[in-house]
């Protein structure tokens, strides 16, 4: 009975295989998101899929169940074993995968960091595709919030984890702008709190902010989970008039709050374009039409000219996209 | 004496016809026919394992008979479960009170009553009132709103009895209800039992104490080895008759004590105290001597043995082995000093049920079978098979799980385990409980031989004849204290019982006995 059940289970699994053998002539790309069930990456995957349909490359995606530091490792090994040409990955950790990525590269696999980089471990990947120049994100957010609150009053930041590298880059830039730009002289950053990208913790932290700082005028939450949780908190506390919120969020997640006025505007970029660019870059590199040199440029349909910057980083767009009631319905991701 | 029924006149309330019960193919009850009359108190007597408790459980629906029928008021009935029994008006008061320790006394009284819907409301106030009324009736002072957990065993037993009263049963079966009770409580119980009988209810009373049976019961049925031997009016038999019927031959025939020379003090215990269990216990056991330890269940005998052996060490007091004062905080310390302990509860404290006989026998001698930590199989096998031969343990293979052996052979294996440690002091706690008559005799012989070989033996037993026949001296405990130290000549049924019953209520013994 034991045996039977298991064999049945395995037989069931046979039915679920997504592709057995990979064609030799086409460039094969695999994309490993942070975790499964994360809507942000669904849109990014779509970019890959569409680009590969156009370019004629093979594309698969495989994701671990949790966004824990080590969970992507078996996937990298397995994909290397499958003999893929390109591994694109949104890393869960800036350093835990160094060795396994090196091993993949030794076997001739092109490793691309997508949407997040291996900060300070650049030598363990070939290139990185990031949505925007991350030095511009922080000031952009400060300016957006400033415009909402008349450049005056107490503000706070609700971030992801204390160690999230991208968020920390942005926050540092925000602090720098607030300190140096006289335009923001009357904006006073009173707190930085961290919701760990968990809905429950983010909610409690946002509630505590409203509670602890009764004169709070605005919150910046540069993370999709955080900004949604903060919007929910402001909505249920009925403080949309007094506390302004902005941050980085996905249109689908934020749509109800923009529609009911809880949030006037927030920003993000197009994850779709990241997939689109990554696929074009990878195929071009494999075909020899693009060279992975700092400073070299190439053309990508719909995106225009892309330049490879310092640390082999390239961006899909120059500025953040701002979403508000006027344009939010044009986006679906 | 209200001996109003001595013969079977009229229709019986309950008749058993050809009741046979098998467990895993083994007959523990054979073809039992028995009539229980209205308005009688009917004693079931027999040794442990004779089948009386099994029979009681069949009456109460705990077990279903393998063959045979039960007739209630002349028509056959299926007593398929305890609930079914309850619906038929049959209540069993278990040997060990079965209660729900976290629930209140009042709740314990009504729980499982079959009337009322499952989602019906619990009438708390009514329940408490009724429970108090019952307690008054029984003359016990128990706070019925408190959980059962805090009650003494005796009080728990009284609650059980109260439950039987409350359930308004026609047939009440009491399985050794008096074991934990004080004589005063026994007296109350008897009063109530008589009143119930006079109301026309039937009571089945299981006890080991002949004097209680004489004081209370109208008729007795004697079981032996799964057979019903006889049902007669209590007055028609003498104690000697009853004992003969229970064990199949007279006591003298199977209890024999070989003389041994008594030597120096092997085990000396002074002022041993464990608050709540026993206090100020002092005695000594000499080489070659068999010292009995008698008393009622719960008197603290087993606790003293466990304390000496280090299972649950005493809080204060001194123990000396072979003249040297020692500290024993764990059984392993005791074993190193040459002590051995055959515990009362063989199933949980004695055997390793699923492990081989061989492993069971060699469990206490790790150093001998594995001088450098690695077990020498051949040596182990030799030691074990030697013991099997010596003690005549009946088995199919040394590798057989010990659980497959009969109780007597299991007990022999446990004894074999301890003999391999070559102990100078052996503590035997109810060594013959639940063992076949035939094997029992073998045990008595062995105990005698062990003493003759110069070992000191402390024998705890609830069976008076066993104590009287085997021991050189009999100690008696009551309420956690040593109340008598009787020489072989002083020790009689009466003197031991006299010392065993609690002092606080001694004056009432005459009524009970």
């Amino acid at each position: 009975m034991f045996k039977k059940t298991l064999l049945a289970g395995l037989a069931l699994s046979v039915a679920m295989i997504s592709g057995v053998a990979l064609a030799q002539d086409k460039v094969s790309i695999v994309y490993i998101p942070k975790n499964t069930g994360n809507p942000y990456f669904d849109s990014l995957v779509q970019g890959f899929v569409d680009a590969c349909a156009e370019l004629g490359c093979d594309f698969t995606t495989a994701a671990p169940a949790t966004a824990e530091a080590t969970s992507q490792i078996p996937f990298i090994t397995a994909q290397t074993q499958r003999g893929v040409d390109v591994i694109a990955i949104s890393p869960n950790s800036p350093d835990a995968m160094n060795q396994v990525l090196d091993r993949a590269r030794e076997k001739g696999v092109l490793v691309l960091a997508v949407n997040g980089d291996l900060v300070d471990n650049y030598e363990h990947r070939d290139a990185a595709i990031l949505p925007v120049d991350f030095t511009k994100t922080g000031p952009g957010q400060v300016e957006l919030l400033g415009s909402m609150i008349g450049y005056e009053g107490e503000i706070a930041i609700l971030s992801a984890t204390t160690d999230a590298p991208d968020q920390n880059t942005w926050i540092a830039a925000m602090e720098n702008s607030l300190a140096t730009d006289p335009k923001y002289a009357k904006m006073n950053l009173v707190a930085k709190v961290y919701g760990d990208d968990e809905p429950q913790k983010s909610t409690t932290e946002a509630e505590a902010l409203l509670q602890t700082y009764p004169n709070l005028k605005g919150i910046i939450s540069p993370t999709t989970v955080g900004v949604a949780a903060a919007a929910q908190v402001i909505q249920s506390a009925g403080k949309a008039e007094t506390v302004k919120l902005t941050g980085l969020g996905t249109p689908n997640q934020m749509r109800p709050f923009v529609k009911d006025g809880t949030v006037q505007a927030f920003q993000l970029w197009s994850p779709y374009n990241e997939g689109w660019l990554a696929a074009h870059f990878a195929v071009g590199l494999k075909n020899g039409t693009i060279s992975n040199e700092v400073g070299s440029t190439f053309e990508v349909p719909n995106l225009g000219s892309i330049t490879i910057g310092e640390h082999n980083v390239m961006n899909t767009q120059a500025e953040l996209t701002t979403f508000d009631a006027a344009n939010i319905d044009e986006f679906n991701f | 004496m209200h001996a109003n029924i001595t013969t079977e006149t009229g229709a019986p309330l309950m008749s058993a016809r050809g009741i046979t019960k098998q467990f895993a193919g083994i007959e523990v009850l054979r073809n039992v026919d028995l009539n229980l009359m209205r308005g009688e108190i009917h004693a079931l007597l027999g040794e442990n394992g004779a089948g009386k408790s099994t029979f009681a459980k069949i009456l109460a629906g705990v077990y279903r008979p393998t063959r045979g029928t039960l007739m209630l008021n002349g028509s056959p009935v299926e007593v398929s479960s305890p609930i079914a029994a309850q619906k038929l008006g049959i209540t069993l008061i278990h040997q060990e009170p079965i209660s729900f320790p976290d629930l209140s006394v009042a709740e314990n009284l009504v729980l499982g009553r079959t009337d009322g819907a499952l989602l019906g409301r619990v009438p708390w106030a009514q329940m408490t009132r009724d429970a108090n009324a019952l307690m008054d009736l029984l003359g016990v002072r128990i706070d019925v709103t408190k959980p059962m957990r805090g009650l003494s065993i005796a009080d728990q037993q009284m609650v059980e009895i109260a439950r039987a009263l409350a359930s308004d049963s026609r047939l009440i079966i009491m399985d050794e209800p008096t074991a934990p009770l004080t004589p005063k409580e026994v007296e109350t119980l008897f009063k109530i039992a008589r009143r119930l009988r006079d109301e026309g209810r039937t009571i089945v009373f299981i006890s080991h104490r002949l004097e209680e049976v004489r004081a209370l019961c109208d008729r007795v049925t004697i079981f032996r080895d799964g057979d019903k031997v006889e049902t007669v009016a209590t007055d028609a038999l003498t104690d000697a008759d009853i004992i003969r019927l229970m064990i199949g031959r007279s006591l003298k025939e199977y209890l024999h004590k070989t003389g041994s020379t008594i030597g120096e003090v092997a085990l000396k215990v002074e002022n041993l105290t464990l608050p709540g269990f026993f206090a100020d216990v002092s005695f000594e056991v000499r080489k070659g001597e068999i010292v009995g330890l008698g008393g009622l269940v719960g008197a603290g005998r087993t606790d003293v043995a466990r304390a000496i052996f280090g299972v649950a060490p005493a809080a204060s007091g001194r123990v000396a082995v072979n003249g040297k004062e020692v500290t024993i905080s764990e059984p392993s310390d005791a074993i190193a000093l040459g002590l051995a302990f055959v515990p009362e509860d063989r199933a949980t404290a004695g055997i390793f049920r699923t492990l081989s006989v061989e492993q069971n026998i060699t469990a206490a001698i790790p150093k001998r079978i594995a001088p450098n930590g690695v077990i020498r199989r051949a040596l182990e096998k030799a030691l074990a098979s030697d013991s099997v031969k010596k003690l005549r343990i009946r088995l199919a293979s040394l590798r057989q799980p010990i659980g497959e052996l009969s109780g007597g052979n299991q007990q022999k294996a446990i004894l074999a385990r301890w003999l391999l440690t070559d102990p100078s002091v052996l503590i035997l706690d109810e060594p013959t409980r639940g063992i076949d008559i035939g094997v029992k005799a073998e045990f008595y012989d062995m105990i005698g031989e062990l003493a003759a070989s110069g070992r000191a033996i402390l024998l705890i037993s609830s069976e008076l004849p066993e104590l009287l026949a085997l021991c050189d001296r009999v100690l008696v405990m009551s309420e956690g204290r040593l109340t008598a130290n009787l020489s072989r000549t002083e020790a009689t049924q009466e003197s031991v019982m006299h010392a065993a019953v609690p002092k606080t209520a001694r004056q009432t013994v005459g009524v009970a006995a």
Partner: protein
Amino acid sequence: MNSTEATTTSTVRDAAAARPRWQVLLIRPETMTLALLIGAIIVASNLSPFFSDLGFILESSTYYIEYALVALVLTLVIISGEIDLSPAAMMALSACVFAWCYQAGVPIELSMAASLVAGILMGLVNGILVIRFQLPSIIVTIGTLTLYRGLAQVLAGDRSIGKFPKWFNGIDYRLVFDVPVPVILFIVASIVLALVLGTTVVGRQIYQIGTSEVAARHAGIRVRRIKTGLFVLMGIVSSIAGLLTASRLASVRYDMATGGELQMVLMVMLGGTYIFGGRGTILGTFLASWLLVIIATGMTVANIAVTSQLIVMGLLLIVSIIATNAIYARTQR
């Protein structure tokens, strides 16, 4: 109910016949595990052409071998009638202690020693709570698993600590006769523990304790000492596994080995160790560890979604206990 059992057996006239030897050998949980292992290898090879490559399987096995190493000791704990659900958290905390010490400037050798000491202490805390305070181990270790993981988080925050010396990193890439060092370690530990359990007095006593703790105490077996020792051994082996993981990842985070306890319990259960104690073998756990490696690796390389992996793991756990229970119930009589 025990008293009725005693009455039952007391009247057994003659001992029942022993079971034939071949039956005893064949109807064993380990036989099932072996059959499953062979089946899994066949199915996995058919699922993906990339699977049947010993080097790849060995490399992939290093991701699970740390758990398998702990599972070996957990087998002893479960045979002795207890359970420990905290080893994954102990791995994380001891590794965090190591990394924290190293970062604070303690020489790496001493940091490793500190990690071992932490492991011993954690095991001791478990042991004391279970043995001295007589609390049920299953719930105690649920408490300490939360506590240890929490302390790891307090100690390391959510940073990843790395930058260990080169010689420390990448133990999984050091090969002895083409076999990664951790795998060698696992095999050696299996042999040693199998010998301890099968041929020594301590091993024998672990079975006896698990069969009946009361009887073991009465037979003079030092139950408390052995059980405490086993809990401490869990701490030590968890610490070693934590260091292996740290070496493999070249970095340490508090969320290392998250969810590992389920995998460890699964390995032990799948190997036919009886959940109520007293039965089980190291061989079973050894085979089950490889079974798990094969299943997980096979599914990952065949690109089977994590969804099915979770379902298969859950089903395997339940089915394996049912099967083991059934087998033991058969031989019990």
